[in-house]
């Protein structure tokens, strides 16, 4: 069969079949490629899009990238409901099945260790936003400062309330992160997302990922929910359950041989 192999994830063999209508990158259904006691989840992708040159160009095309990213995540998501997948980074492509098998064999030890570490665990994303009041471009729409001194006073007041809100949000985020870390096995802090992103309003002051056993997920979610209507002006957002993306790379961090 022609075409390249796009690899989504590596997992242990699992009994539950994938949803029949599940499609992956390029609309192809993902299939399982077992090798030893590991399974690679792969699908066929056309050379016209995924050979080195077109891939490089496509990765710079946002529409293409968005579609592939969503398809990739869709497959990982489906796997997460039936097993514990090790998600690979987007764009892992091999020439044929045997290339994938060779890779599985070469990294077998690594995969096993990481799979053992993550077995039965999922990732939850928690973000804290500081809602911003109408600021900063129009400093004083109604009352124009009457004098320089007036102006200075107004400015000082604005700065002070902004600083207070920031400080409050920071304390809130720190406390929340500490509390959630206690309910999680592991945690990662990610770079804050941009406020304009996804139409999310406010400033992202915490963007964290938590590794939580499935069986404790309900508890974790409840814990997050309870913080949600805490302080006015501060918003908590929960996403998940994700495959343990943020925790898959590690430990095998000494794998520079690859």
């Amino acid at each position, binding site marked *: 069969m022609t075409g390249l192999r796009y*690899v989504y994830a*590596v997992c242990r063999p*699992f*009994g539950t079949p994938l949803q029949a209508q599940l499609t992956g990158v390029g609309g192809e259904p993902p299939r399982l490629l077992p090798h030893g006691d590991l399974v690679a989840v792969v699908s066929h992708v056309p050379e016209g899009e995924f050979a*080195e040159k077109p*891939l*490089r160009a496509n*990765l*710079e*095309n*946002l529409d293409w990238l968005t579609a592939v*990213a*969503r398809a990739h*995540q869709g497959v990982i*998501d489906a796997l997460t*409901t*039936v*097993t514990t997948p*090790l*998600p*690979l*980074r*987007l*764009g*892992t*492509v*091999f*020439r044929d099945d045997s*290339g994938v098998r060779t*890779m599985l064999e070469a*990294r077998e030890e690594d995969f096993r260790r*990481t799979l053992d570490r993550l077995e039965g665990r*999922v990732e939850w*994303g928690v973000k804290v936003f500081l809602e911003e009041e109408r600021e900063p471009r129009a400093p004083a729409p109604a009352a124009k400062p009457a*004098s*320089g*001194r007036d*102006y*200075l006073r107004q400015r000082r007041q604005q700065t002070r309330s902004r600083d207070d809100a920031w400080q409050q949000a920071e304390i809130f985020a720190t406390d929340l992160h500490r509390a959630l870390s206690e309910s999680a096995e592991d945690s990662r802090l990610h770079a804050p*997302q*941009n406020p*304009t*992103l*996804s*139409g999310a309003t406010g400033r992202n002051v915490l963007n964290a990922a938590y590794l939580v056993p*499935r*069986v404790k*997920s*309900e508890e974790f*979610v409840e814990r997050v929910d309870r913080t949600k209507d805490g302080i006015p002006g501060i918003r908590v957002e929960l*996403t*998940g*359950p*994700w495959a343990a*993306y*943020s925790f*898959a*790379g590690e430990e*095998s961090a000494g794998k520079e041989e*690859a």
Partner: protein
Amino acid sequence: MTTPSRLPDPYGQGSSANLADILERVLDKGIVIAGDIRINLLDIELLTIKLRLVVASVDKAKEMGIDWWESDPALSSRARRDELTRENAELRERLARLEELELEPRRAQEENT
């Protein structure tokens, strides 16, 4: 086997999952394996994609939370504007200070004449 039924319903995932959440994970996280098709995703991810996005579609890039160029005066007129605003504010403060300093002597002068 695992017990998916124990898992709470997804929060903010699926179609509502924001693109930044997804890209953050599928591009930045996950296991890195050198496939047969060699792409240095790190390079592309950090430089090319973001740069191209700026050129290709600022709105979409912003949707994704990529906006670092906005604060770089070399790349953004808004950043230049912000710099002007800052400078303006500084000048106003200096003006306010000068007003205070100048007010007293001038008043004294006016009284004298």
